């Protein structure tokens, strides 16, 4: 799924023979049909992006036109200016990046070491623990959300980032499961070689398993980063001070106050999505692999 694998000029037609094991009658019609289906589906999925971009670059008076039209004679970046003026975008960006980065670091350290225990240390009770970890994924967050909130509130830490950050250092069931699946594929012989030389488990974890598991760690980091970046419910519950808003909460409050300013809203939505789309384009191979490893996004 690499973006760089763009189709060559003359999409398939001249060299289509090589694509099929045998050349059947009607293969040209079939090729055309295949492309027709794929282009149609892609258009459906991409069209909203086109609308968002077009709306975000249109002057306010052209946005509400009947019938709606995509084009404009007066493209402008005013909406982006308006969005950035109306909310401290840089501040939100910094807050969100901070929370997302700490989340990635916390999950990298904690989930990987637990996954090591489940995949590479042979001990009684390990399968039971794995089962428990997987079972917690089914627990509706609503069950724990209220007591956890009360706990943070008793500690006087609501209204700070701590309730969002501290739990990240205790591992997450999903990431542990994902890394464990990958760790299991690392050949035992490599670990045995290190053991013969007297390396401790901590050493093997750090110097043998982690370097070999880089693709999985990258995938996990992308997931953790994206989830933290887009999280809505937790910041909504814990953050009150506009100075501390994340992009999600910032956009939410912006919509609450400027509901009908679609141009500025679409500009803000674009700015908020752009970093994630970039992260995804760079790391998409690992990202997709992570989904395939676990079956979940």
């Amino acid at each position: 799924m690499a973006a760089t694998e763009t189709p060559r000029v003359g999409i398939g037609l001249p060299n289509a023979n090589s694509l099929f094991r045998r050349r059947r009658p009607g293969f040209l019609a079939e090729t055309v049909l295949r492309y027709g289906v794929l282009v149609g589906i892609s258009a459906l999925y991409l069209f909203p992006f086109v609308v968002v971009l077009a709306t975000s670059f249109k002057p306010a008076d052209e946005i509400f036109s009947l019938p709606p039209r995509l084009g404009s004679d007066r493209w402008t970046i005013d909406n982006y200016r308006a969005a950035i003026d109306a909310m401290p975008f840089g501040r939100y960006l910094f807050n969100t990046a901070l929370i997302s980065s700490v989340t990635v670091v916390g999950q990298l350290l904690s989930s990987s070491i637990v996954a090591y225990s489940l995949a590479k240390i042979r001990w009684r009770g390990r399968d039971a623990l794995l089962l428990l970890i997987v079972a917690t994924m089914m627990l509706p967050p609503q069950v724990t959300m209220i007591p956890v909130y009360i706990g943070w509130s008793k500690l006087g830490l609501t209204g700070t980032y701590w309730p969002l950050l501290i739990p990240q250092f205790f591992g997450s069931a999903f990431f542990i499961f994902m890394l464990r699946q990958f760790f299991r594929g690392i050949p035992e012989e490599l670990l045995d070689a290190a053991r013969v030389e007297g390396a401790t488990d901590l050493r093997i974890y750090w110097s043998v398993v982690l370097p070999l598991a880089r693709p999985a760690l990258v995938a996990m980091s992308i997931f953790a980063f994206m989830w933290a970046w887009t999280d809505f419910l937790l910041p909504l519950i814990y953050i009150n001070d506009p100075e501390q808003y994340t992009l999600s909460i910032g956009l939410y409050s912006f919509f609450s106050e400027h509901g009908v300013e679609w141009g500025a809203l679409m500009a803000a939505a674009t700015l908020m999505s752009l970093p994630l789309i970039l992260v995804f384009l760079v790391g998409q191979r690992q990202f997709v692999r992570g989904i395939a490893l676990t079956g979940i996004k």
Partner: protein
Amino acid sequence: MTHRSVLRGLLFASPWIVGFVIFQLVPIVASAYFSLTNFNLFQDPQFVGLRNYQRLAGDELFWKSLTNTLYLTVIGVPVSLTAALCAALALNMRVRGQSLFRLFVFLPTVVPVVAATYIWRWLLNAQYGYVNQALGTVGLGQPLWLDDPFWTKPALILMSLWVTGSAMVVFLAALQDVPDMYYEAAVIDGAGPWAKFRYVTLPLISPVILFETIIASIFTLQYFTQAFLLGQTRLNAASGGPENSLLVYGLYVFQQAFVNLNMGYASAMAWVLLFVALAGTFVLLRVSRNRVFYGGD
């Protein structure tokens, strides 16, 4: 030796175990207790026995929210998984530029949920939105997606079709695992495309379909953000949309807990949700027992 390995295993797994106790086990017990109390965060919990559960039985909004969430689960999950499977089948066709088409279909899935929901509020705008524009062009009705209580949930399902990327990737991985020889054998037996899909593909990927159905159903039972933002009118209102048609279960729990500060009542709701999720999973596994094919190897 086994003693020491257990100790080592537990030590390496300790981050998750500690986190589980603090953030899940204790909260679960606390939540069960709170569900038997009146608790508004500022005074000590007052034990009321099963009164919260009795009140739930007579609470119209509770039933409304449960119905809304079940609607999304029973109708929305099959619809969006079918769409994801169709997309996966199309994207599994061998053509040049295949990876690029896959990228296009996956891209919406990385858009932050807040941005994506506002994008759809604009697309679904009854008057200026492109969805109704397109429906009008082909001569179909133009529903008031966000104002007509009948259409708000279909609007949510429509939105979910845009972000089926992760299920699509999982199905794609499953499709690629189907050995070519089965198709070749089917062709020799005179099977057409539909017969190949029905008698080869579908049975072989049925475990993945079951798994995705369970995961998607669990996530849908916890549904919150999209409904919250689609029904949003002003800051912190936690509106249920027109005639509470968007008051999904997670949203009602949020209203009770964090808007009305009925922590005890909300905890009782969370426990009902847990039982619904467990019962639903059990039913799914039971019903699918004879319909899912676990390969002989």
